[in-house]
């Protein structure tokens, strides 16, 4: 698996001197599904923003195998972050509009992407008319409409109920398998990270650092039945133990 991105020695210090990240090393293979797990405040979101180019690190480097161009990175926030004044289709079309993609082509791609997240018949609804899970699907469609090489997700399902979250987990996995993007998924749920990922990176509490890197060799397709399987349970135990060690290090 060729590397898409290698992060080395990444540090982010705020003007007051507090360090959010302290020497993060991480490599990201093309087509991987990597979850970042860590206690709250460990800088997971900060790391994601640096990768997206929304934040500049104090020191350290990001070296890209193939640098994604405009629209090459999709981002899904913790909230759906839709434009309330725009209909669903216009929300999904935003990245294409900003890039000046011709109207007809943009419309076709929006229709295709909405069909993939199962919201085709809601294209002319306004965000407030949708449920929380549906809004998150719109956000997913918007992030994927540019066919990004890298999709960054910042605890996207944390605010949803468990039934909706499980459904969206399956949908996200199906999209990942169908479209072949690389995903970095920030979560504080061990179970969610193991279910989704091909690899889980554990971060220590602030200042954040990657302290463990656990491959998840579970086969695809993964379904609800996996959640009760022994190998899934064993991996969850491993990740939990690594997380506990990461937090213990902090306390010592």
């Amino acid at each position, binding site marked *: 698996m060729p590397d898409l991105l290698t992060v080395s020695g990444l540090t982010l210090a705020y003007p007051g001197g507090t360090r959010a990240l302290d020497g993060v090393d991480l490599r990201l293979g093309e087509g991987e599904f990597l979850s970042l797990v860590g206690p709250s405040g460990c800088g997971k979101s900060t790391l994601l923003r640096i990768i997206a180019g929304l934040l500049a690190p104090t020191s350290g480097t990001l070296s890209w195998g193939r640098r994604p161009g405009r629209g090459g990175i999709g981002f899904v926030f913790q909230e759906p972050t839709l434009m309330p*004044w725009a209909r669903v289709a216009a929300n999904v079309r935003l990245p294409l509009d900003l890039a000046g993609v011709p109207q007809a082509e943009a419309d076709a791609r929006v229709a295709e992407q909405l069909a993939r997240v199962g919201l085709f018949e809601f294209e002319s609804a306004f965000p407030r008319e949708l449920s929380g899970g549906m809004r998150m699907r719109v956000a997913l469609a918007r992030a994927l409409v540019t066919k990004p090489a890298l999709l960054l997700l910042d605890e996207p399902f944390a605010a949803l109920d468990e039934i909706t979250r499980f459904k969206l987990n399956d949908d996200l996995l199906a999209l990942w398998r169908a479209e072949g993007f690389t995903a970095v998924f920030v979560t504080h749920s061990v179970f969610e990270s193991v279910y989704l990922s091909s690899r889980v990176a554990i971060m220590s509490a602030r200042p954040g650092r990657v302290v463990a890197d656990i491959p998840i060799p579970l086969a695809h397709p993964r379904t609800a039945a996996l959640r009760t399987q022994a190998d899934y349970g064993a991996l969850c135990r491993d990740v939990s133990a690594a997380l506990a060690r990461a937090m213990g290090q902090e306390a010592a």
Partner: protein
Amino acid sequence: MVAGRIARALVPLALGAAVLGFWEWAVRAWEVPPFVLPPPSSIATALASDWRILADSTWLTLTITLQAFCLAVVSGVALAMLFAQSRLLAAALYPYAVVLQVTPIVAIAPLVIIWVGYERVNLALLILAWVVAFFPILSNTTLGLAAVDPNLRDLFRLYGASRWQVVWRLQFPSALPYILAGMKVSGGLALIGAVVAEFVAGSGTASGLAWRIIESGNRLNIPRLFAALFLLAALGVMIFALLSWVQKRLLGRWHESEVGRP
């Protein structure tokens, strides 16, 4: 539903009719002199017989009010957007906008009228009405532009949006509910500004509704004074209703403030 809506419309009308009826009866029963409080019937008569003069005055006041209001909206929104582009500019100019706002219009009116000149008094009225109407638009738009969802702002950055795209596709629509709320306040203030300025100008150089009120008061033609007052109130209500309608049309389905209202 429909019955409820009709009732809601009828109740205030019925109340108004009752008050007018009592007014008419009370003035006659207690023999109140007409120069203190004329009965509604003689106000209606004055409205009909002096219609030409009153209509001309109403038209003048309306024109000045609407011009001032439109100028206020355009300049207020434009300046707020300029402020949003440059913190330095905002820091430099905002205090002066506040000074303009907190200085009572009555106090600066004579100066403005002298500068512009009595021969162009309508222009002076326009300027004064604009000064009053301008600030709510500026402050509300500034507030609205600052209320942009920071994650949406990041999203626009991620997709390499140009400054113009950020202004028109993100900042302006985010601020729209605030701008419309400011417009409702400003529409009423433009009318007040036009009237107050005319009161200060006085002495028949301007001939809007405010002058009709001064003139009628001086001549103790109280029914006509009431007729002019009635027209002023009607103008104010009309402006408010029009702006509420615009607000409903523009925010309709997407903004919490308008969703689910009858």
